[in-house]
């Protein structure tokens, strides 16, 4: 056991902190889930990229700085503590990139990753369809081989595509052997999908923005009508899309998408809010204060659980079904943190103008956590079956 960061890690932390202190936009940017807000966030992404902070853990020739996992964690802690903008590029850099590193050819990596790092390409995730949410293997959007053109033709519809209305590219699963799927057998359903990378600005693609709970156009429906995708935009093998996609869902649930730094920072801000409310004449509410303490403890627990996971990953282990527990934990912690802020605000909680508006917005976003990245009901099934070894139904 050694519970200290090395000198060079501490050095990295202070560099990051200094840079963020100078550069984080103030006042905070408008929501990145609106067209004008998205554009401003891209400017910020560009600034991060120019300072080589957009993808610290990537190799330097692809736009990163070869940071270790530990340094990446430190970066995240500092990023959220500095109240820096949400990452509108996150679905690319946190969800797609790990898959490209694992399954992409060297050529694909060189062609796709630097543009992702700079924000020139922005990626959205095309998994869900109207009839395939939790049951992702139930997708029906399909791709038909066009051998003479050297590629595939896509047809169908994706939905709930986060920031699909603003992104340049989509990664998603499409059915490449509809007959196998129709047989209904499990292997049939799972071995007939392929992972495609699709440019959205082309004939046959129609994107309709859909308002999320907070009124932003953060969702999209994406329709495909005879959309051409060249062979070099297939990720992994044809008909192997399911295993390619599943290999990295751990990233979404576990470490990368929602690192502990976020929740540590929110817990800190919640404590500040509580102190401010008392200082400005609010009643001291021991019951709420106790729950804030518990939420802060939980954020620390997530941090230390992560330190264990990172140690094992650095030692060469693979992440497994434990990531489902991580997803359950952070998503429910986030709801509690934001709910506590609303409790502190009392009748001011409903305001969406003025100084406290961001808390209601953050509460609304936290409520989505138990739904996206695999619902918490599904995660509980995974924990029961794959961590505890309980029999499947």
């Amino acid at each position, binding site marked *: 056991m050694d519970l200290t960061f090395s000198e060079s890690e501490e050095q990295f932390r202070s560099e990051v902190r200094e840079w963020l202190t100078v550069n984080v936009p103030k006042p905070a940017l408008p929501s990145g889930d609106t067209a004008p807000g998205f554009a401003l966030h891209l400017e910020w992404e560009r600034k991060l990229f120019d300072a080589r902070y957009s993808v610290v853990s990537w190799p330097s020739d692809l736009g990163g700085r070869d940071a270790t996992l530990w340094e990446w964690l430190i970066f995240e802690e500092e990023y959220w503590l500095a109240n820096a903008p949400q990452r509108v590029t996150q679905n690319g850099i946190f969800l797609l990139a790990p898959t490209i590193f694992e399954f992409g050819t060297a050529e694909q990596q060189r062609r796709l990753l630097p543009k992702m790092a700079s924000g020139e390409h922005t990626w959205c995730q095309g998994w*869900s369809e109207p*009839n*395939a*949410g*939790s*049951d992702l293997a*139930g997708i029906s959007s399909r791709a038909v081989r066009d051998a003479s053109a050297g590629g595939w033709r896509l047809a169908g519809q994706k*939905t*709930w595509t986060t920031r699909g209305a603003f992104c340049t590219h989509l990664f998603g699963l499409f059915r490449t052997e509809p007959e196998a799927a129709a047989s209904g057998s499990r292997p049939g359903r799972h071995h007939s999908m392929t992972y495609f990378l699709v440019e959205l600005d082309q004939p046959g693609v129609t994107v309709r923005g*859909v*308002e*999320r*709970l907070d*009124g932003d156009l953060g*969702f999209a429906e994406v329709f495909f009508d005879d959309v051409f995708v060249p062979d070099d935009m297939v990720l992994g093998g044809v008909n192997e899309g399911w295993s390619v996609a599943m290999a990295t869902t751990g990233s979404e649930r576990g470490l990368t998408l929602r690192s502990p730094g976020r929740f540590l920072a929110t817990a800190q801000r919640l404590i500040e809010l509580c102190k401010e409310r008392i200082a400005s004449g609010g*009643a001291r*509410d021991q*019951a*709420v204060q106790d729950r804030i303490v518990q939420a802060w403890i939980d954020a620390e627990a997530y941090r230390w659980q992560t330190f264990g996971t990172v140690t094992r990953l650095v030692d060469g282990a693979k992440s497994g079904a434990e990531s489902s527990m991580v997803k359950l934990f952070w998503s429910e912690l986030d*709801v509690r943190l934001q709910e506590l802020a*609303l*409790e502190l*605000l*009392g*009748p*001011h*909680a*409903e*305001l*969406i*103008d*003025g100084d406290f508006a961001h808390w*209601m917005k953050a509460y*609304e976003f936290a*409520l*989505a956590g*138990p*739904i*996206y990245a695999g*619902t*918490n*009901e599904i995660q*509980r*099934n995974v924990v029961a079956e794959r961590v505890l070894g309980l029999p499947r139904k």
Partner: protein
Amino acid sequence: MRFEFSQEQFQFRDAVRDVLAKTCQPGDVREAWNNQTGRAPSAWAALHDMGVLAMLAPTEAGGLGLTELDIVLILEETGRCALPEPIVETALIAAPEGWVNGTDSASVSLPESPFGVWTDTCASVVTLTADGVRVAPRESVRLTQRESVDGARRLFAIDMGSTAPIAPVTSTALAFRRGVLGTSAQLLGLADRMIEMTVDYVKEREQFGVKIGTFQAVKHHLANARTKLEFARPLTYRAAASLASRDALASQHVSMAKVQSSDAASLAARVALQCHGAIGYTTECDLHLFMKRSWALERAWGAANWHRRMIAQSLFERL
């Protein structure tokens, strides 16, 4: 002991439910989000025509001379349809005191609920403070508009200027208790509606080749929400009876009602959203109209924690 409403009370509730089912549909609530006033005028007119607005007004003043116990089920219905109207402020607080009559409406603010709702289109503005009740015509007060997460709720910070208190502190207390009771009743209706919508949805939506309502996880969520509601309703009904009979502990009883109904609505909203999945996370789905009203009302007229502290004071004082 007989803890049940009368046949007449149920019948009137059903009649109001029928009328609101026609005049305050989700489309009408959406309309209120987008219109000038945030209100649903045809529902308001219908409630006036049925005598609801004047239920508690004395008969001498042309009212029905009824009590909180007679109106509590009606208020629950106004929650069930997320009625965007100041029904609690008007029918339960202002009309019984003669501060408004006819189709006129009232807006009320107080330290625990510092914003009036729909104030700019109300005839009378009422504030409740420790030194008494102030009532003024809308034209004589200064309003500053604020924005609520519930787009139908038009919020205003109210400046009463030099208006002097007209009523003694005892009527402040009564007005406050009535407001808390009415809000609790609306929260029950909201919770019930969100559970009902979700039950309907999970019987339709299929994943993995079956209705999602067949999954035990989904069933348990909904059963928990329904159970919470089951143990919120009786306390609101009991508080209504306590107010009607001017029970000495009425203050504690309305606080208990508000705690329980706020928590029941909060859980119902959470469960409803979770069982809907992403579709519930859009403004295209009606659920958000009910969820956002719940979030606002849970914390209006004293949030659950505030009322727990009030109850704690009285409980531990008497030890």
